[in-house]
């Protein structure tokens, strides 16, 4: 709508309103209240039409409402007798002129009704979603205008209550629906923001589409992706898109495919595309963070596995190297002592002493190797390894359950170190009479290691020992829980994912 037309329409509307106010000014007016209500109907069409035309320039609805409003007021805002005039300055004439005018208005109204109905039928066939809903005022106003012309246009005569009371109310629905449409468009903008805020982090493009579709009330809304080579877009089902599209910034060629009715709301489409862009960017960033987190987790798991492998290698090296040599040395010293026996008591005692030193060195080396990596874990899995820990525990410990199956090395090592560290803590700090070890599959995919004692409790999870153990459990994706109320014993539970 250009500026001159807008000015002309505004001037016409202002004149009509002024005329109406002047005409209905009580000291001058000879209007009945029902006639005032008819004038209000006409003015409402005029104002709503101009506003709609301004808001939705591409729509014919605003134009039609404006025309109806301008035709209405000349016909029905007249004073019949003494007041100045209606907008076209007709209507102060004789009764026959007034009747003629009424008949003409009725015929014009019928023509408008015909035009509107034709437009409705044509558009309704092709429209969907927003387009159809945008036509609701049309649906209402077309029969209403027709009915009005029939009822008041001098073609028929109906009771005054129907003609002057019910009909204005019926006709007011058209402009009111326009207002509702406007409010709905604004509400959609607000709902859009809410939908984006409520969208869970990292939501898939499918969920984003659903949220946008709900917010806009456009069930046909789709996300589509640019075809390789830039030749059009494909929707999520791989079908070529032939509807209205709006590019989503920073999405690598993704577009919004929306109902053509939304073209009446270009700002809303832009807002939707911007919201989609932000949501997709958020999803992308979320995915990036998730991927980086996964990389860190995998890296930590690899570091722990590499550490375990290195410990196994070190234990094997000690076993194959230093321990073998000490064994041979110990045996040789034993043989030398036997041969020296009786011949040289001093030499015999010296060799015996050397043999003892060699055996003690061997014992210490075995303990060292076991601390580096328990061979029994490699040899027998958790069953034998936990049994060995329980047997060596200074505090009486019992095994409630241990699965008789092998798990991945990292899982076995983690479970073993949990039991080992827990039993060591029981011996050092708990002042307990006994401890219990339970390892079982709590549900598919989880291995739960539990060590409890009847000691003094009060263990601090933030202490370096338990914190290190928690890190170890976390390295395989598990969680360590410590329940240690003062005086109530300690219960340590590692919940570890396992195949």
């Amino acid at each position: 709508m250009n500026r001159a037309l807008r000015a002309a329409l505004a001037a016409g509307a202002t004149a009509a309103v002024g005329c109406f106010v002047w005409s209905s000014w009580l000291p001058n007016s000879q209007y009945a209240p029902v006639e005032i209500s008819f004038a209000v109907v006409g003015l409402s069409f005029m104002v709503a039409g101009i506003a709609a035309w301004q808001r939705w320039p591409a729509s014919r609805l605003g134009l039609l409402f404006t025309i109806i409003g301008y035709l209405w007021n000349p016909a029905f805002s007249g004073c019949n007798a003494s007041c100045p005039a209606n907008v076209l300055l007709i209507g102060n004439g004789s009764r026959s002129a007034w009747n003629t005018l009424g008949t003409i208005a009725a015929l014009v109204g019928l023509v408008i009704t015909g035009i509107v109905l034709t437009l409705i039928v044509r558009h309704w066939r092709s429209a969907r979603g927003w387009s159809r809903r945008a036509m609701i005022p049309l649906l209402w106003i077309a029969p209403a205008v027709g009915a009005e012309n029939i009822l008041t246009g001098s073609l028929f005569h109906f009771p005054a209550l129907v003609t002057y009371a019910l009909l204005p109310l019926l006709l007011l629905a058209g402009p009111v629906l326009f207002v509702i449409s406007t409010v709905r468009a604004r509400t959609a903008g607000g709902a859009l923001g809410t939908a984006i805020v409520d969208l869970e982090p990292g939501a898939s493009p499918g969920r984003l589409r659903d949220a946008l579709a709900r917010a806009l009330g456009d069930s046909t809304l789709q996300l589509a992706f640019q075809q390789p080579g830039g030749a059009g877009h494909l929707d999520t089902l791989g079908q070529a898109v032939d509807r209205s599209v709006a590019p989503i910034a920073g999405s690598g060629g993704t577009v919004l495919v929306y109902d053509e009715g939304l073209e009446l709301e270009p700002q809303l489409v832009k807002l939707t595309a911007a919201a989609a862009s932000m949501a997709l960017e958020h999803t992308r960033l979320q995915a990036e963070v998730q991927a980086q987190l996964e990389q860190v987790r995998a890296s930590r798991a690899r570091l722990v596995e590499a550490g375990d492998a290195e410990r196994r290698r070190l234990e094997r090296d000690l076993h194959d190297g230093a321990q073998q040599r000490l064994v041979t040395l110990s045996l040789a010293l034993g043989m030398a002592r036997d041969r020296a026996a009786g011949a040289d008591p001093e030499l015999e005692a010296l060799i015996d002493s050397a043999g003892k030193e060699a055996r003690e060195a061997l014992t210490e080396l075995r303990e060292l190797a076991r601390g580096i990596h328990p061979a029994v874990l490699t040899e027998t899995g958790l069953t034998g390894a936990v049994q060995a820990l329980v047997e060596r525990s200074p505090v009486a410990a019992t095994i409630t359950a241990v699965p008789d199956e092998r798990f991945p090395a990292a899982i076995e090592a983690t479970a073993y170190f949990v039991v080992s560290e827990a039993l060591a803590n029981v011996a050092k700090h708990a002042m307990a009479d006994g401890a219990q070890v339970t390892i079982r599959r709590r549900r598919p995919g989880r291995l739960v290691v539990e060590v409890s004692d009847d000691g003094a409790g009060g263990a601090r999870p933030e202490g370096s020992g338990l914190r290190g153990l928690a890190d170890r459990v976390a390295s395989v994706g598990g969680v360590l829980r410590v329940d240690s109320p003062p005086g109530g014993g300690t219960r340590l539970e590692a919940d570890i994912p396992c195949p």
Partner: protein
Amino acid sequence: MQSSAAILIVDDHDGFRAFARVMLEADGFTVTEAATGAEATEAARTVRPGLVLLDIGLPDFDGFEVARRLAGQAGGPVIVLTSTREASDYGARITSSPAAGFLPKDQLSGAALRRFLARAPTGEGRT
């Protein structure tokens, strides 16, 4: 001809085998050596030793597997598992194997082996 004085030492450590041979031959045993599980099963078939001193850690099969194969032979030898580690490092695998027992390497002696032979049921480890 199976003899209680014939010992088969199975160990991949040359130094240990050599020293054990000296020690056991000094104690009156006849010693044969094998460095792998495959060699052990072959030597047991040809030499028919009365006792096999079997290291658990071997390069091809572990000692438990070799013990299972040797035990399958008719009138099989007394099998004594050995290692530089302790018996507890192998949990129940030792008691559930067909071996007569476990002897830590640093406690090897002719007397210790004779005790295993003496405990062996009649027909096992003897002609």
